[in-house]
């Protein structure tokens, strides 16, 4: 958000004189810009600087030691694992859901659309609890799961499940409007000429939703990496086993190990910045393609 806001304010400065009437007086302009910049600084820039400053306070050696700690590396790998699996699952189901909703008429369609948005409206903690109740010891499913030796609660599958749940809407939400705007004419035309469903998807639908899909994947990955609430409930905090990066930060912080906590945070921060850059590139290319 930070990059977006400043970007949109800056280029307009040169043109304010032309549209002076619509933009208000010079004083208003200065006050608004100052307020926005101040707000961004206090809310975003300052915390980021603090994280970096605190991480390196005891020198680079200590920082390196903190981030290469076995538990931290384990947490990083688990976070990446959960993220990759969540993105793959949500891409597949997101595509299916968006496809079904935009291309077919059926009963309960509106309900399905609302349902897809559910993870955004439900608090992640509650989402976590739902899964604990569904798959935990209290559940009638528990005995079956125990029989096949497949543990969900307080195990890696639970973490993945929670991540998938929380990030579910991101991909389908991005694709849906694009598919709906496109309509079914092109697909019908292709089908009339004898193209098979997969050819139609590959040659006509996919090129159309490509950028929305990539954008959705980026958003989904960003959200998956940072997920805390639902994962926290399902994880059980078994160190080195079911701890993701955000949980690791919490544990370190709880143990009063401030410097390592900040160091681990900085990894998450770097990942977020990378995703932000990827997002901007995707958005830029996507928009340029759209204008052609």
């Amino acid at each position, binding site marked *: 958000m930070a990059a977006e806001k400043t970007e949109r304010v800056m280029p307009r400065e040169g043109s304010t004189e032309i549209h002076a009437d619509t933009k208000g007086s010079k004083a208003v302009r200065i006050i608004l810009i100052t307020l926005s910049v101040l707000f961004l600084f206090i809310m975003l820039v300052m915390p980021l600087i603090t994280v970096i400053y605190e991480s390196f306070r005891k020198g680079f050696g200590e920082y390196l030691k903190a981030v290469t700690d076995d538990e931290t590396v384990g947490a990083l790998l688990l976070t990446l694992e959960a993220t990759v699996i969540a993105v793959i699952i949500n891409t597949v189901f997101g595509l299916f859901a968006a496809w079904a909703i935009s291309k077919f008429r059926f009963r309960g369609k509106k309900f399905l659309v609302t349902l897809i948005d559910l993870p955004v409206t439900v608090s992640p903690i509650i989402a976590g609890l739902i899964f604990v109740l569904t798959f935990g010891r209290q559940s009638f499913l528990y005995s079956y799961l125990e029989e096949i030796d497949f543990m969900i609660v307080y195990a890696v599958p639970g973490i993945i499940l929670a991540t998938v749940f929380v990030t579910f809407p991101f991909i389908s939400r991005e694709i849906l409007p694009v598919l709906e705007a496109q309509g079914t004419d092109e697909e019908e035309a292709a089908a*009339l000429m004898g193209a098979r469903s997969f050819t139609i998807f590959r*040659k006509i639908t996919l*090129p159309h939703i490509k950028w929305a899909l990539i954008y959705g994947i980026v958003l989904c990955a960003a959200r998956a990496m940072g997920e805390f609430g639902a994962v926290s409930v399902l994880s059980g905090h078994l160190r080195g086993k079911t701890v993701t990066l955000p949980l690791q930060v919490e544990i370190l912080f709880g143990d009063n190990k401030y410097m390592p906590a900040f160091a681990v945070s900085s990894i998450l921060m770097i990942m977020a910045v990378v995703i932000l850059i990827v997002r901007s590139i995707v958005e830029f290319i996507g928009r340029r393609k759209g204008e052609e």
Partner: protein
Amino acid sequence: MYIELKNINKSYGSFKASDNVGFGIEKGKLVALLGPSGSGKTTILRMIAGLERPDSGEIIIDGKVVNNVPASERGIGFVFQSYALFRYMTVYDNIAFGLTVRKQNKKEIKERVTELIELIGLKGFEKRYPSQLSGGQRQRVAFARALAPNPQVLLLDEPFAAIDAKVRSELRKWLRDMIHQLGVTGIFVTHDQDEAIEVSDEIIVTNHGRIEQTGTPADIYINPTTAFTSSFFGTTSELTDYKLFNSFDDVGEYDKAIIRPEFVRVTKKNENQKYEKSAVEGVVTDLQFRGNSYELTVNCNNSRFSARRGLDEPAVEIGEKVDVFIFRLFITQGNTVRLLKNNAIREETVII
């Protein structure tokens, strides 16, 4: 009959889109499905294409019942109203698509596509994308794409709706010539009567999911057989009471008396009116220049209707009192129509 529809019914929920529809089309003819929006014409087209299934009835193409033949195997080319060009493919790839999915060899595809691109006059545009073409060019590409796999039947859904007026009349002629030249059987949907009259060999008039009348454009225009067709063609007006106008037979009970501008002769008071005895007085209430004529709105015997006057005739003004003579009119009774001729003309022909 090359294409035949027999007792076709189709409903969407409680809406009856096709109500016992039946007609036949000869090979090589260009036929217009004409009707107001919501009259079921597009549904008929989509059922012939195989994009919709009729609830009951038979669709026969070239002697075979095709109800259960999938759309892609009916040998049909379809031009969508929005053209539905593949926006992420070039003009070349768009036209080649139907051949590519049929796995024809590259050389044959290239020959056919090049031939079609020349036919539609878009040589040099092969590498363009649909968004870089004008409306008329897009329509031609859609046309070429539908024709590429050599279909025997070409279906067009409102082919000229999205094109501006000047290019439209040019494209109409082009399409008509092209279809006759290629010898395919064409059916196009339109709500524009001028378009249907100008382009088609035959018109099928639809209304409320039913077929009202079929025939050549001239036949349908001159001899409408249903109440709907009599008022659908031309700029029709209704007379409140035709008996107030002189020299028409009394037909007893009737629903509507309908006239078209060409049924009316308006003359100035000092002008020579051939049927002076049968003319009635009216007032000009509106006057519009139409390029090749003036369109007048006349108030006469409590009826308001339009008439035309040539540019070389003495000018009339708004508010001027004029003589109005009506040659003939359509009388509708239920769903039947009868043409009523003015007796003044009939008497004269008898004398001669």
